[in-house]
């Protein structure tokens, strides 16, 4: 059902955890299937220095979360903002049609984290 890449990220997810001193946090939940994700960013000079995630969700949701963190770690905020759901799914070598919506979680959480980061910048 899942590609090897998905199973790899599900079994050995990268960047799982929390960042207690995060510069931004993004959360999202899927009304559809109940999955939820929380993403923590550590940003330095507009670049994502560190990133961690926590996910309640199916295999596709966990693998997408892990994949996303790998894709954006070390990137600038502007670069990261351009990552789409489709990019994540593509990087995973595709997802079953019924599972595509699960990969949305990750990119959505990232958008929320970036939003959080920007609003914190403003209020500084």
């Amino acid at each position, binding site marked *: 059902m899942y590609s090897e890449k998905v199973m790899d990220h599900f079994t050995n997810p990268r960047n799982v955890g929390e960042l207690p001193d995060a510069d931004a946090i993004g959360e999202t939940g899927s009304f559809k299937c109940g999955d939820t994700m929380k993403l923590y960013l550590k940003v330095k000079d507009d670049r994502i220095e560190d990133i961690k995630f926590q996910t309640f*969700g199916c295999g596709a*949701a966990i693998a997408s979360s892990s994949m996303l963190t790998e894709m954006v770690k070390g990137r600038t905020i502007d670069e990261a903002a351009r990552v789409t759901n489709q990019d994540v799914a593509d990087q995973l070598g595709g997802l079953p049609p019924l599972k595509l919506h699960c990969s949305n979680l990750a990119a959505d959480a990232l958008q929320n984290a970036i939003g959080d980061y920007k609003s914190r910048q403003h209020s500084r």
Partner: protein
Amino acid sequence: MQSRLVYMDHGATTPVRKEVFDYMAPYFQEQYSNPSSLHAPGREVRQAVEEAREKTASALGANEDEIYFTAGGTESNNIALRGVAKKRTKPGHIITSSVEHHAVLDVCKNLENEGHRVKYLPVNQYGRVDPESLKEAIEDDTFMISIMAANNEIGTLQPVRELGAVAREKGILFHTDAVQVVGQLPFNVADLNADFLSLSAHKFNGPKGIGALYMRKGIKIDPLYRGGSQERKLRPGTENVPGIIGLGKAIELAVSEIPEKKKKLEHLRDRLIKGLRDIGEVYLNGHPKERLPGNVNVSFQYIEGESVLLSLDMEGIAASSGSACSSGSLEPSHVLSAMGLDHSMAHGSVRFSLGYGNSEEDIDYVLEKASPIVERLRSMSPTYHAR
């Protein structure tokens, strides 16, 4: 990869027993004639088919002429419900429960589109229908009541005897989807006051693609398919002879072994439930006592069912889940929702369904693997950290 396979998905389907396979095997290459053929080899096959019908009837406490072979549980349910509805000249009222299998629920929804009214009875926290609520739901034009004997997801047994008695007293036809119960628990159709009963061979170590409908003598319904005169025209088409022979043997074996098997499975089931609960924040779904001997359905709080399943699968453990993400639909299980479980608990449910081949060692193995899996997934979960 892994060396071991522990199959705990008997609620989905079961392996064919060796005795059953050996019994049906000659009907593929040797006794292959059409039972409707007049010649000697055809007549021999006819006789074998009728013997299988006798075995099926006797397992249910029914008469041979009350048994109709079908292609499975789904077909039996469809024939019973739609066949009764089709026979009517005007739309009427049907009562079922909110925890039925889709092969009942979706027929009812379709009949609603065609003008019938359907009441989906609520269930309590254990998934049980209250016979009082059935009584109250009956209307003047209620023509059919369909309540399953046991639920496939949570294993809860319905009080079918009482429900059937209500139906019989009111003179309303009563159907029970007994797909999960046949071969697991002793019963007979008279006790149940059942007018119709559905069963499927692959749930009791018989072959896939064959089932039966019990229809009480004297009842007439409209067949859904037309064609030859097989199964007294209720289910035309050349008989699935090896399937029928296999069903007959499987039901005979299964029913004769019920006492012994029930004891064994209940013991394994209760050990597994206890062991899983000991992980902590693991909750049993369904009735604690009135449940199928082999059914264990638990919700692992803070984590999602499919991720548990995938992890179990990597250890060679085959189980299933009512979780939205694994069923192909996006909704959480309609059964768990009807029982009032909140979304996240419903999403965290996993079903281990035990069967004939499972052993104490299988339970040990599952318990050994489950604990670190749950721990790992919880460590990734935002809700676990926020608890």
